[in-house]
C-alpha cells in the first residue's frame, strides 16, 4: 500500500530557524561563501532537518505524534536551498512493507528533491495499535 505523498517547502529562513532550534550552527547551512569554499554548490539543508520533515510525514501518516518506535535513514545527496523566497521542495512518499502481528507497521520511505532521491534506506516502524 502506498501512502499519500507529502510535500515540504524549504527556504533559507527554515534552515536558520532549524539551526537555532537544534543547535547545529555549521556554516554550510547558512553561508554560501563557506559552502562553496568546501566544494558544495551552495547552502544545503541540515540532513537532520530533512530527516525531521520525513519524521513529520511519518507521524502524520501514523496519526499519532508518539507512534514511531524505530526510524533510520542514509543521507545520499545534499538538499541545496537557494537564497530566494521559494527555496526548494522535498517530496516524501512511503509504502507499507510489513504489518506485524504485534501491531507494528514498517514503512519504506522515499524522499526526493528536484526528482533526485536525497535519502536511501529510509525506514520507519510505527505502532499502529495503542
Amino acid at each position, binding site marked *: 500500500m502506498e501512502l499519500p505523498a507529502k510535500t515540504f517547502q524549504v527556504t533559507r529562513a527554515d534552515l536558520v530557524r532549524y539551526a537555532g532550534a537544534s543547535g547545529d550552527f555549521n556554516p554550510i547551512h547558512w553561508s554560501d561563501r563557506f559552502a562553496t569554499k568546501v566544494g558544495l554548490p551552495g547552502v544545503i539543508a541540515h540532513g*537532520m532537518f530533512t530527516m*525531521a520533515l520525513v519524521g513529520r510525514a511519518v507521524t502524520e501518516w501514523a496519526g499519532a505524534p*508518539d507512534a*514511531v518506535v524505530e526510524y533510520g*535513514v542514509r543521507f545520499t545527496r545534499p538538499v541545496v536551498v537557494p537564497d530566494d523566497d521559494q527555496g526548494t521542495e522535498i517530496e516524501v512518499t512511503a509504502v507499507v512493507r510489513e504489518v506485524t502481528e504485534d501491531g507494528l507497521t514498517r514503512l519504506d520511505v522515499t524522499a526526493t528533491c528536484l526528482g533526485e532521491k536525497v535519502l536511501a534506506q529510509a525506514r520507519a516502524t510505527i505502532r499502529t495499535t495503542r
Partner: protein
Amino acid sequence: MSLDPSFVGRTYPPTAPYQVGREKIREFATAIGATDPAHHDPAAARALGHPDVVAPPTFPVVITMAASRQIAEDPALGVDYSRVVHGDQRFAYTRPVVAGDELVCASTIEDVSNRGGHGFLTTRTDVRTVAGEPVVAVWSKIVVRGEA
C-alpha cells in the same frame, strides 16, 4: 588518513544530565512545522498518556549531538572535523522524549572502517533518564572524506 579500527568498542563517560524543557520542545516542533497539539499543549500530551509535551522523533539529536561530537573530536581518533559529512542516522525508541526528562548520554564506538579513501565511524549513544530508565538508542555514522 585512515581511522584506527582498534577504537571499536571504546566507550565514553556519560554526559552531564540534559534537562528537557517544554519550551525547547515547542521551539523544535515549530522549527520543523510539527503542529500536532501533543508537541505544544501539555493537556493534549496528557490525553495520550504522557506527563508533558512530547518531542518529535528526531529531537534526541539535540541531546546526542554533543556526545557524538565529543567522540569525533577525540584527539586520539584524529578525525578532521572539517571533512566530516553525515552518513546515516537511526533512532530506536523505548518511549518518546517528554518535557521534564533529565537525560544522560553514554556513547560507544560501534564500528570503524575505511573504504575508497574515506573513513566511516558509527557511534551508538544510549539515552537514559538520570534514574537509568532507557529512553532511546541513537546510531550515527559519519563519513570522513579522504583527500581528493
